[in-house]
């Protein structure tokens, strides 16, 4: 079955596209470094979010052309960015006041594991090496809505959506929606509630690759994403 899943599953770009559809016009948004940064590319026409980066910029735009980088103008992933009209600079304490103070509308983060109570593990595999946390633990307790984008299963085929995380936690009960390569799942009252799934996958097959019970509460819509 895993082979079949690999045939039908969404690409990272498609997962990012789906997450972008839920960002409202004028929302203040923080995108985690790496894969989540891709969400910015897929804002629906007519909507414009304002992007925040932990290192003190609000209202930044796309990456500059190669060779046009100014390395004093970077995002939290240390990638060069550009400014949109109406942007602002501020120091790190003010930046995390925005985060921790509940001023961001949404944070979209990657995940190693998400539990059905909303616990998130995305900073450490717990296997040693050099630990590094960055701003992840702040973001999960600050934004009004914390969403995760992730492959539904690991490369080894193990579930990433669990009854309880086995890896070190980033935050407790913080995630409210998960966009995976197979489905869109809300976390409500300590349960995974299936909202959308790829039309090509049966519910039972989806349940089989999910590490906790998938509840159905109302219609499960088709997860339809354009080729990208």
């Amino acid at each position, binding site marked *: 079955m895993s082979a079949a899943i690999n045939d039908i599953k969404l690409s990272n770009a498609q997962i990012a596209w789906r997450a972008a559809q839920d960002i409202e016009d004028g929302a203040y948004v923080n995108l985690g470094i790496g894969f989540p940064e891709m969400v910015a590319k897929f804002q629906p026409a007519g909507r414009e979010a*304002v992007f925040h980066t932990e290192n003190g910029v609000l209202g930044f735009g796309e990456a500059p052309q190669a060779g046009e980088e100014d390395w004093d103008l970077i995002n939290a992933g240390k990638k060069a960015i550009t400014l*949109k009209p109406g942007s*602002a600079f501020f120091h790190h304490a003010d930046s995390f006041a925005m*985060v*921790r103070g509940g001023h961001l509308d949404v944070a979209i983060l990657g995940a190693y594991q998400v539990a059905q109570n909303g616990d998130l593990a995305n900073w450490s595999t717990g296997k040693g090496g050099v630990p590094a946390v960055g701003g992840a633990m702040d973001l999960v307790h600050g934004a009004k809505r914390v969403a995760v984008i992730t492959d539904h299963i690991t490369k080894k085929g193990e579930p990433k959506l669990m009854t309880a995380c086995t890896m070190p936690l980033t935050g407790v009960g913080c995630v409210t929606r998960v966009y995976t390569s197979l489905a869109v799942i809300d976390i409500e009252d300590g349960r995974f509630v299936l909202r959308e799934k790829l039309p090509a996958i049966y519910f039972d097959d989806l349940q089989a690759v999910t590490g906790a019970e998938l509840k159905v509460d109302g219609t499960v819509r088709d997860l339809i994403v354009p080729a990208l």
Partner: protein
Amino acid sequence: MDKTVAALAEAVAPIQDGATVMIGGFGGSGAPIELIHALIDRGPKDLSVINNNAGNGHVGIAAMIEQGMVRKMICSFPRSADPKVFTDLYLAGEIELELVPQGTLAERIRAGGAGIPAFYTPTSFGTDLAKGKPVAEFNGRQYVQERWLKADFALIKGELGDPLGNLTYRMAARNFNPLMATAAAHTIAQVSRIVPPGGIDPEQVVTPGIFVNSVTEAAIPQQEEILNRQEAVYP
């Protein structure tokens, strides 16, 4: 995104009876007189007002109090050149007062905006203003635990504003304004001039727009100090 609002009355329209309202300014410097007077025109009652002072003369916050709109003042210094409006009501037991040391007031508001529910300060330790508050020792010194302060609304006076809500302030009129902008669920700013997006250098933005819900222009704002020297009365 366009947070500009054409009329002062429209800007203050969401403020209902019973709201907690932070109002920027230190004395008359940075006091959003036009927004306050628009709020008086609207006339919500039973408000809790947070400001450094408790009004002066018969304009601004003093006029709000005189109109019977204010149930409680949270401030550090309810005295002024002419504090009669507040003083009379306070001595008659008709208005509540929560007295907070000025630096603690600023820090509590900043904490409200920054998601810090409580912090420790040396200020007020061993005084009447620390009564009933938890105390803790750090590095051999005693500190008082203070809680964050948030509001339903903030009325702010800026100098320049843009449609995204970015603000600058004029000289010492900055004072509590940038803090209060962060600590209210809904922040309403009056500015002397609205400029297009990009009209404020991003390095010179003092209040980033994320903290501001609406911006309205009061091109030649009144100065409370001058109104009081003219013995002005509002309404």
